[in-house]
Structures are given as structure tokens and as C-alpha cells.
């Protein structure tokens, strides 16, 4: 009874008796030692193994399934002694070859490479190839790719890149390299015994010059492996960085419409919508959107491709693909540029119109200012929650809603009536277009008795596009009159600037008396005086002045 093991030669599996295996291995190792040039050696060894596989195949018969020692002897007779493989070119290296064995062994274990396994492919054989490379069942990688596909389509990107970069395992030697030496007990045993052998060899033949050369050789090897390790780190960094950038981009571009709702604001439906309401023309969005995606993703693809190439040590030519990408990218940039030039011309004219708003009871002593229910955004917008005005833009079938109207309440010296005016502003290609845009801004204000109801957002027809439309309500409060803040006032009267006290202040329910050019808070013990109330103005923020500070002249009074 003899123990047999199964071996893989050139992608063919044979059962071989253990002793025969040992002899075969020794034989091949000795042959290998004849060759010094690594590339040449790998190729020659692959050819020889191929021939051995062929000879084994001839030996196998229905009633003889196992390769025995005798077969190995016969094969040696056919192929020749290990020395027969040497040609004179190698003879000068021959004495060194023993010493080189460890290096050779290391390199052979490294020679495994990532290929696409088209024999077991679903699409391009990438999962199967990865399976061989990492010694894992290909199903594992298929599951990983499916999961990555769900994650904003990252799997697709990665798959396409690998498809581009990873060569197909066409030849038998590719297939051997792809399958590589599997890490198992045998190969570990092999490795250890080789190291032992070289150590004993070394101790036998150690003279000074060889020792020195050994040190030099070693430092070169160490240097190379450090370089390789560093470049691998870069490879991993590029790949993972690129994938993260891609995921991030997908979140920004598609927001909630991504397959897994991950993060992302819930008030903006993604970039396509923004493009539609910003760029001129009826249906510009698709072209711009595609260009935008290309401009942003191509560099990411390039980065990941570079990473993968470094990581798996690919050198094959991808010039055509690279040029195609470069051209597509330039075209996309060109398209975006053209659209943006056109867009800029749409902002050329700027117009502002002030409308006077009649009040039902302008002569009363107090005015209660409230904000209507916000049916588009929210009644409570946390100033910290805002990452910009884009969050307060919303679009439906007909209208664009913009949730940032400004409110400015000014204390004036005069006595008399409350006065309310609405300032509307817009840009446009021409002045008349800007005026047209202004006239179409819908910002309802309701005056009922001494109550004033403001709308929390402005509304404009979708075809007008976003042209920096903006609305400011100015309320002039004569000396001695009282302003009361009612429901939802904090939706509009709020401070996005980084002044600590206004954040903490909720205006709802407070009362303010206009005194000289400032407001005095009724019922409060402090003497803080507010010059004006302004919502997050781009130009004016209410200043908190304590009683001692000199007043600055209020320009707004001159209005």
C-alpha cells in the first residue's frame, strides 16, 4: 500500500505516489537550478512541465491511474539528466546556483498572477481569476461584486476596470500562473526543507568573498522588496481611495435615488434636478449630467486602474483605452464649458424692484408678525443642519421653491404708520428678462388687522430657472410702536451666522419696542438693544450692542 497525492502540472491533475512525487520534485528543482535568468527559466520550466504532463498522460491508462516511481525514471530517460538541460551560457553560473536556490524558491511562490479565467466565466472571468489568486472559491467574489453593485454601482466600476486591466488567461502557461502554487501543507513543507538545505549549503561553502556578495545580494533583495511593498501600498491606496471617491460621487449625484439610501439630504433630489432648473434650454439636463459624470468619473477610473496595475504588476499596453478616455473627458469638459458660458450670459443683467405692501391696519400700535405653515420644507430648520442654500431648493412639476426669504425689521425715528415693502431681485440675460423673472416670483404676504403673515418660501415657475431670485421683506417700525413675533417666526427670522446669542434666542412669543433706532425687548431684565432684525442676510446681520456701545448710523433709515 502506498500513499498517493494529487498534483497539478500545467493545469492537469495527476495522482502520483508520494515517493515518485519527491523524486519528480527533486528532478525539477535540479533542472531549475541550471537556469539563472528568471524569465527564461520560468518559460523553460513551463515547457518542461508541459512535456511531463504530456508524458504522464501517455502513461495513464484505465487500469493504471497512478504515476509511480518507475514512470519518473522513464521520464528522466527521455528528458535527460538535469545537467543535460544546461547549455554553456549557464555554466559560469553553475557554481552559484546552489546558493541562489532560496531566491529562486521565493520567486516561484511569487509568480502567481491575476488573470481572467474565461473557462469559468460568467462575464469576463474576473471573480474566478480572483478566486484562484486569493485561493478562495469564486462564489465568494461573485457575492462581493453583487453586494458592491448594490452599493451605488461600485461593483460595476470595479468590474469594468478589472476587465480592462486584467489579461485573459489565454495560454497554458497563463493558466498555470493564474492557478499558481496553492498554499497547502505540501508547499510549506517544501519551502521549509529548501531553506534548511540552503542554510546547510551556505555553511559549507562560506568563504569571505561569497559572504560579502551574499550581503550585497541580500541588501539588493531587501531594497527591491521594500520598493515593491511601498508601491503596493500606493496601489492599495489608489484603488481604495478611488472606490471611496466613486461612492461619494454617487451619493452626491444621485442622493436618495441611489439604490441604498445611505446619507444625503432629503430636500434635494440630486444633481439632475439642479441642472434642469439652472441651465438654460428645455432639456439640457441629460447631456450636462452625462458630461458631468464623465468629467468626474474618468479621473477616478484612471486612479483605480493605476492602483490595480501597480497592485498586480501589470505592464500591458492600454494606450488605446487611455486615449479614448482622454478624448471623451476633453469632449465632456468642452460640453460643460460651452454650457457654462451660455449660463453665465444668462446672469448678465441684475434687477431689483421694491414693492410697497399696503397694510389693513397700518396705524395700530402693534404689529404681530407670523410665518405661514411651511408645506414645502419644514417649520423648523436647524441652522446647523444647513449645508447651503441648495437644501432649501425644491422643485415640483411646475414650480421651484426657494426657502430662504429675508426679513429685515428696522426701527425708525419717525412716528406714524408701520410700513412694509417687498424687495424682489433676479438676474437674467437682459434687463427685461430679469424684470420678467422678478414679476413671476410669487411671495404671498397676508395682512389681517394688525397681523402680518409671511410666506416661508418663494415660488417661481420652473421655466424661469434659478436666476439668483431673492426676496426681502422690510418692515419699518416707527418710534414707540411694538413688534410681536408670532407663530413660526423662527423659520424665517433666524441667524445662520456664528453669533452665539441669536442661536439661543427664539423670537416666537417675544415683543419688541422701537426706541430711537433700536429695539428694546419688552419684559426682559437686560438692556440688550437690537439695531435691526435680519434673517441670515448676505449683507446684514443683526448686531448685538450693549448699552455702552456707540450707535452706528443706520443707513437703512434713509431708505
Amino acid at each position, binding site marked *: 500500500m502506498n500513499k498517493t497525492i494529487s498534483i497539478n502540472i*500545467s*493545469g*492537469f491533475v495527476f495522482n502520483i505516489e508520494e515517493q515518485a512525487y519527491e523524486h519528480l520534485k527533486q528532478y525539477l528543482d535540479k*533542472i531549475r537550478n*541550471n*537556469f539563472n535568468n528568471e524569465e*527564461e527559466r520560468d*518559460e*523553460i520550466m513551463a*515547457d*518542461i512541465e*508541459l*512535456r511531463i*504532463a*504530456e508524458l504522464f*498522460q*501517455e502513461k495513464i491508462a484505465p487500469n493504471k491511474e497512478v504515476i509511480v516511481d518507475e514512470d519518473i525514471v522513464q521520464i528522466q*530517460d*527521455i*528528458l*535527460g*539528466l*538535469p545537467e*543535460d*538541460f*544546461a*547549455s*554553456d*551560457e*549557464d555554466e559560469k553560473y553553475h557554481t552559484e546556483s546552489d546558493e541562489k536556490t532560496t531566491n529562486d524558491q521565493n520567486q516561484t511562490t511569487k509568480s502567481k498572477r491575476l488573470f481572467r479565467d474565461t473557462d469559468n466565466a460568467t462575464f469576463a472571468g474576473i471573480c474566478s481569476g480572483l478566486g484562484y489568486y486569493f485561493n478562495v472559491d469564486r462564489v465568494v467574489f461573485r457575492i462581493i461584486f453583487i453586494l458592491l453593485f448594490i452599493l451605488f454601482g461600485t461593483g460595476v466600476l470595479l468590474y469594468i476596470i478589472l476587465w480592462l486591466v486584467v489579461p485573459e488567461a*489565454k*495560454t*497554458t502557461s497563463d493558466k498555470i500562473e493564474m492557478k499558481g502554487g496553492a498554499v497547502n501543507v505540501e508547499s510549506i513543507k517544501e519551502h521549509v526543507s529548501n531553506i534548511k538545505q540552503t542554510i546547510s549549503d551556505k555553511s559549507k561553502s562560506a568563504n569571505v568573498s561569497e559572504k560579502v556578495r551574499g550581503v550585497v545580494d541580500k541588501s539588493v533583495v531587501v531594497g527591491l522588496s521594500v520598493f515593491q511593498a511601498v508601491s503596493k501600498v500606493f496601489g492599495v491606496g489608489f484603488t481604495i481611495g478611488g472606490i471611496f471617491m466613486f461612492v461619494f460621487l454617487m451619493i452626491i449625484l444621485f442622493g436618495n435615488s441611489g439604490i441604498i439610501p445611505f446619507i444625503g439630504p432629503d430636500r434635494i433630489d440630486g444633481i439632475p434636478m439642479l441642472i434642469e432648473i439652472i441651465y438654460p434650454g428645455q432639456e439640457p439636463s441629460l447631456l450636462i449630467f452625462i458630461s458631468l459624470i464623465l468629467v468626474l468619473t474618468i479621473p477616478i477610473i484612471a486612479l483605480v486602474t493605476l492602483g490595480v496595475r501597480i497592485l498586480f504588476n501589470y505592464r500591458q499596453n492600454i494606450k488605446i483605452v487611455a486615449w479614448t478616455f482622454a478624448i471623451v473627458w476633453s469632449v465632456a469638459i468642452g460640453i460643460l464649458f460651452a454650457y457654462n458660458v451660455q449660463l453665465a450670459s444668462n446672469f448678465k443683467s441684475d434687477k431689483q424692484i421694491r414693492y410697497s405692501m399696503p397694510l389693513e391696519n397700518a396705524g395700530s400700535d402693534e404689529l404681530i408678525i407670523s410665518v405661514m405653515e411651511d408645506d414645502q420644507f419644514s417649520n423648523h430648520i436647524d441652522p446647523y443642519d444647513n449645508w447651503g442654500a441648495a437644501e432649501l431648493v425644491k422643485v415640483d412639476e411646475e414650480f421651484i421653491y426657494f426657502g430662504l426669504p429675508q426679513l429685515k425689521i428696522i426701527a425708525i425715528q419717525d412716528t406714524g404708520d408701520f410700513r412694509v415693502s417687498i424687495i424682489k431681485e433676479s438676474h437674467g440675460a437682459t434687463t427685461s428678462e430679469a424684470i420678467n423673472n422678478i414679476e413671476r416670483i410669487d411671495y404671498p404676504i397676508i395682512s389681517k388687522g394688525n397681523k402680518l403673515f409671511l410666506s416661508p418660501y418663494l415660488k417661481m415657475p420652473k421655466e424661469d430657472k434659478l436666476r439668483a431670485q431673492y426676496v426681502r421683506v422690510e418692515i419699518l417700525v416707527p418710534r414707540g410702536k411694538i413688534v410681536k413675533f408670532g407663530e413660526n417666526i423662527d423659520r424665517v427670522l433666524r441667524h445662520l451666522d456664528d453669533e452665539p446669542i441669536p442661536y439661543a434666542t427664539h423670537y416666537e412669543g417675544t415683543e419688541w419696542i422701537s426706541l430711537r433706532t433700536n429695539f428694546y425687548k419688552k419684559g426682559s431684565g437686560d438692556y440688550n438693544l437690537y439695531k435691526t432684525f435680519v434673517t441670515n442676510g448676505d449683507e446684514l446681520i443683526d448686531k448685538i450692542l450693549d448699552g455702552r456701545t456707540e450707535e452706528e448710523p443706520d443707513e437703512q433709515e434713509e431708505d
Partner: protein
Amino acid sequence: MKVENTKAQMRKGILEYCILTILSNKEAYPSEIISEMKEAKLIVVEGTLYPLLTRLKNAELLHYKWVESVSGPPRKYYSLTEAGAEFLKELKNTWTELLTAVQQISKTHQK
């Protein structure tokens, strides 16, 4: 100077010449080349051939293509490249020259 070395060097050049000659009129895979050379008693074992073929290929004198085999692993079918054909032509000339030279010298010095 060992006679073994001289023999090996002589044989090496001739082997290359013979391989190129065999491949000059047909494609062949290693075993075919070997059987021809064995018949001519040029080599006895196959091992000598593989490194030579690889080196000739790397020198771009030969190229090969994979051909699936019915009964085993695929085979490398080698053939001459244009450079190989050119190379062979020169070798042939040199060989004829050498042959005449050697024959002449051997004849005059025959005892």
C-alpha cells in the same frame, strides 16, 4: 582545456543550425523536433532542446503558437520568423564554408 567543453560548444552551434533547418520547411512541436534529431543521433535526451528553443524564441528567430492536442496538454508549435530565416541562410553559408575548410585541412593532414 577539456575536451568536453569543446565538444559541447561545437554541438551547441550545430544544434541551433539543425533546429532552424528542421523548422525551415514546417512547423513543429518539441517532440517532433526531438524525434528527428534523435534519429540523426544528434541528441539523445529531450532536455537539451527546451532551453535552446526558448532562447531562439527570445532572440526572435522563432515564434510559436499554441495548438490544442487531442490527447493531452496543448502544444507549442514553433516556426521560423523572418529574422530566423535570414539567420539560417547565413548559418548555412558559414556551415558550407566551414565544411569545405575542415575537409580540406583534414585531407592535407591525413596520415
